[in-house]
């Protein structure tokens, strides 16, 4: 049997570029932010390209892709791109096309925005739509949260960029660990061991090694493993390597919120997001608790941060103790780290705020 055509790799991006980009590739001089969602990049040659950025829901049908292709054909000579946060960018070479494009997009209900000091699209993951590992849904929460935060997408009114991400389990496929605001699906009960299946379906040494807290011991009698429930913090990694350790639990699964991460190097080095709210329940379809918690944090930030300050920069300036006070979020034992580098987060000075 013939091996199919393999290893051709992706199409060369050069085939995909609009002519003005091909011409001015690597020779852009500056850009202007014409209005929310609309950028103008000017090349050394004097040429310009206009970008109109539109919110994507990421989980889309092929018909949606055809829709935007139609629009791109009409205004962009058939060229568009997606951003690293899953927005759609219409690339307009002809200045005269910009406003008509915007009009048509608006008329069709597309949201234009996400640039500069906005909340851009929420990087997120599969959730109940496709992943076996999900402790919560992804798309549903994103939709619910963003329905509420749309004004921050279509304007640039925040002190700085605010990047929200969501991951439906601790694997954190959204790499939410460095987001201004991160929503993470969590479990709260140890996996149940299905002794019967475990020995057959799973590699016991791998299962044991998978546990970050060494909570799993061999159980030779059952040809299985035993979980020390006191040491389990429900990361689900053992389940990742072994289907016989189901951890999902409708009554206890839910969502945690982390804040203050960033990845850019502007002013301050990248930072991890840190625990703000240890648990909120799963309340589909619209997760009102999550929505209002996120809104609260965003609004307190919007009101209090200095201009130009990212969430984490603001919190580090005012102090975390003040953050908890301003947001009214209770500080609990959960917030105090007890993982590997815990001691590096403990306060080693009698100086702090009340």
């Amino acid at each position: 049997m013939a091996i199919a055509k393999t290893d051709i790799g992706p199409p060369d991006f050069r085939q995909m570029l609009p002519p003005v980009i091909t011409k001015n590739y690597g020779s852009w001089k500056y850009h202007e932010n014409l209005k929310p969602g609309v950028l103008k990049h000017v090349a050394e040659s004097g040429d310009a390209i206009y970008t109109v950025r539109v919110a994507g829901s990421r989980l889309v049908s092929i018909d949606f892709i055809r829709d935007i292709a139609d629009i791109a054909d009409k205004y962009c000579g058939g060229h568009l791109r997606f951003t690293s946060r899953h927005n759609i960018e219409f690339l307009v070479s002809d200045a005269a096309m910009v406003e008509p494009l915007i009009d048509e997009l608006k008329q069709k209900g597309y949201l234009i925005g996400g640039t500069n000091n906005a909340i851009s699209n929420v990087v997120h993951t599969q959730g109940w739509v496709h992943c076996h590992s999900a402790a919560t849904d992804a798309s549903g929460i994103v939709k619910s949260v963003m329905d509420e935060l749309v004004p921050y997408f279509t304007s640039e009114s925040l002190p700085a960029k605010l990047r929200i991400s969501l991951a439906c389990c601790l694997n954190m496929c959204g790499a939410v660990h460095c987001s201004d605001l991160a929503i993470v699906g969590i479990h709260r009960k140890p996996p149940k061991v299905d002794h019967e299946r475990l020995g057959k379906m799973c590699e016991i040494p791998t299962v044991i090694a998978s546990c970050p807290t060494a909570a799993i011991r061999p159980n030779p009698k059952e040809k299985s493993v035993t979980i020390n429930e006191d040491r389990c913090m429900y990361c689900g990694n053992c389940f990742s390597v072994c289907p016989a350790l189901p951890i999902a639990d409708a009554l206890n699964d839910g969502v945690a919120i982390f804040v203050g991460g960033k990845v850019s190097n502007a002013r301050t080095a990248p930072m991890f997001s840190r625990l703000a709210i240890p648990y909120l329940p799963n309340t589909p379809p619209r997760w009102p608790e999550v929505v209002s918690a996120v809104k609260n944090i965003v609004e307190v930030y919007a009101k209090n941060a200095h201009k130009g300050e990212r969430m984490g920069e603001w919190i580090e300036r005012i102090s975390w103790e003040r953050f908890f006070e301003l947001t009214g979020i209770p500080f609990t034992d959960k917030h105090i780290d007890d993982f590997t580098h815990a001691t590096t987060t403990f306060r080693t000075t009698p100086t702090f705020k009340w």
Partner: protein
Amino acid sequence: MALRDFGGQELEIDEDGFIQDPGQWNQTVATVLAQDEEVPELTDEHWKVVNMIREYYLKFGIAPMVRKVCKDTGKDLKQIYALFPSGPAKGACKIAGLPKPTGCV
């Protein structure tokens, strides 16, 4: 869980066709599974790989890492794919009757 006939022996298999109890594996099972993985005939070269994987699993309780398979059988990855078009995990491990590889996909 579906049942499948392996030359007279009825064994449980999962959706991907992996046998559910590695203890029930034998050469016939291997031969049958090989068909699914586009390996019409298990040659000596195939057996070398299958046996290595099987023995490693029985000894250590885990599937060998790919580098180990290559080293111990003296084959490079290309040759492994030539023998098992669906690759070491889906192809060779399945034929060797190991539990289904999990995790990182």
